[in-house]
């Protein structure tokens, strides 16, 4: 990711959309960030980072807001949200593997 210039995060107003996929505003994020310094909690409370891009666009802005509000610098010292597969969205039909079907925890005799 490219570095951004100083002061850029201060340009946001309360109505600024920070997470575009889930349409989460800076005001909603600020309320969550006031309640916790845990990025995974912010995510689960606001849905920021839960959409199609999985936080690729907004995680830096959220990290900056967390760092600034909780006095934690540099931004890179903050833990990032848990990373999970897939790296990019994949259709169910492309990855479903019926040979992996199991009988469940318990099976039924026919």
């Amino acid at each position: 990711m490219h570095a951004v210039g100083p002061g850029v995060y201060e340009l946001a107003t309360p109505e600024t959309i920070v997470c575009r996929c889930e349409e989460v505003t800076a005001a909603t994020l600020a309320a969550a960030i006031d309640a916790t310094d845990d990025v995974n909690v912010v995510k689960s409370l606001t849905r920021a980072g839960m959409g199609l891009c999985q936080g690729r666009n907004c995680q830096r802005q959220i990290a900056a807001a967390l760092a600034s509000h909780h006095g934690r610098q540099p931004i890179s010292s903050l833990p990032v949200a848990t990373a999970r597969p897939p790296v990019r969205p994949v259709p169910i039909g492309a990855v479903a593997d019926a040979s992996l079907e199991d009988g469940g925890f318990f099976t039924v005799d026919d």
Partner: protein
Amino acid sequence: MTTEAPLWPSARTLRAPLPESTDVLIVGGGLAGTALAYYLGRAGVECVLVEHAELNREASGTNAGSFHFQIAIHQLTALETGNVRERLQTEVRLHAEAAEVWKTLERELAGPLEIHITGGLMVAETPGELRLLHEKRELEEEAGLETHVLEGEELRSFAPYLAEDLLGATWCPDEGHANPMLAAPLFAVRAAEAGAELRTHAGVTRIDVDPAGGARRFSVTTAAGRIYAHRIVNATGAWANDLAALVGQRLPIRAEGLHLNVTEPREHVLVPMVQHIGRRLTLKQSTSDTFIIGGGWPANPEPPPRRFSTRWESTAGNVAVAVRVVPLLADVRIVRTWSGVMAFTEDLAPIVGDSGRLPGFYTLIATTGFTLSPLLAQLLAEELATGRSAIPPEYSVDRASAQATTT
């Protein structure tokens, strides 16, 4: 999208110093613990909740949010042994009560939980599975839970999104789902308003018991300092044995990793929750129009504090069952997988109540914890407040402990 502030207790109160003593000390900040704190607070019972990390980060916040009221396959296949039939009926009656609790919970807590009573389908692919659906329906009817078996054209017209060759499905109108990311936090907020004290980053490391009893029976050392308690409730779910071990108790509970998948949003076509009687599947379309696909596929255990890691095989196998049952999913894209943890008791029944061996040390844990925890917390709060118990004797801790020592 929403612009109102999310509901979460303030960081300042969660990190405040611990009180010196309390009547009830609740250990565990998941759904069971926060619900208990709320019901105790409302009943005027002094209580403090301590959580080792953040609220709602384990099973309570990482499950799929389904209400499971129908009897599941693993419960039915145990039918041949002992008094299982009777105990299943106790459980179904409890499920019917839990359904009532969820139906009114948004009003009770005055906040959004994204509760949708959509009804639930449990499908059968084989003649054996279909026979089991009919047996299950009889048991459920006897216990007072409404279910219907749908077959052929009736099923086709009721649920046109299901694969045409499925043999049948039971329909339970009470089933549905809520948002697990909202439930425990809202209980926590309302608990604090009702007078309960909640603290995070306060993991319990030591418990000293005064055999003489009294208001300071337990001296509890936590990462946030010491607190005296008259009574303790173990609401630590999958990690219950870590706490129980501090007082020499062993509970028949194990932690299992649970795999889940979520897709991109699509037009809302799937109203009910869909399960499979013989395979690992729960499938629903959420309030955000995404499909949430789970059902008990495994995740890899990792040592704390790491999260359990996901297995790609669980994705491939889990979504294969989903697309077999609901073919229109084939071109829907998966955007994320995640893993949660789940507490399994050996006999799959909840463990709730006081310990005969160590009076004052209570347990509050259910296998299908999301569905049952608000109700069980309500019942235990009533017992702690009044001394009268409405908890089924089959769920006694000593039943559990006794089993644990013989297995």
